[in-house]
């Protein structure tokens, strides 16, 4: 099913500048894979080469961090909002 995906500013140039896009899937993994298929410029920035979640990216389904749910197997439902945010860190 289609879900709304909110993009961080760093990924928006790959989506023609859009801050929100739609992607298909019933799990986060499917949604992100669909996102990268539609916007190939995001390849490598959201998922790693072996298909896992990039460690410098945080993904939420509504208010829940998927790392505390089922990671890429976290299910998404109609009406959910997926938010992608970069990890912000340094020293």
């Amino acid at each position, binding site marked *: 099913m289609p879900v709304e995906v909110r993009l961080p500013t760093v990924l928006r140039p790959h989506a023609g500048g859009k801050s929100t896009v739609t992607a298909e899937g019933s799990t986060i993994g499917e949604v992100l894979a669909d996102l990268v298929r539609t916007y190939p410029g995001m390849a490598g920035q959201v998922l790693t080469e072996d298909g896992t979640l990039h460690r410098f990216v945080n993904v939420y389904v509504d208010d829940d961090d998927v790392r505390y749910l089922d990671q890429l197997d976290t299910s998404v439902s109609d009406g959910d909002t997926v938010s992608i*945010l970069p990890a912000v860190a340094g020293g």
Partner: protein
Amino acid sequence: MLRVPAPVYAEIIGHCLRGLPDEACGLLGGDPQAGVVVRSYPTRNVAASAKLYTVDPGDHLRADRDAEERGLEIIGVFHSHTHTDAYPSPTDVAQAPDPAWHYVVVSLRDTHPTVRSYRIQGDLVDEEPVVVEPR
């Protein structure tokens, strides 16, 4: 150039001082085209370290939503250096998440905090003036 209203500038320094002995961090909400900070979003440092910072992801999500509701964007991040210069460390440069952001570093080494801002694109670090705008 990064323009910061005086009250927001004070909030940034205050949050950094309150974070001692650890590094403190937060996000900057504003107008990316004009390089103007409108509000700061103090966040938790989940690294809880005097040498490292990680913006709490939940705080980031809330800041991002609040900024969107106000017609703003997250345009950068600020963090403190407890004992070193107000200059991006190699870790700061390596982990800078967005080349369009402003990176504010607050040094708490001396009696009076020093605040500087930078653009980080790849390995290139360019300082930009911080203009504190009067109330």
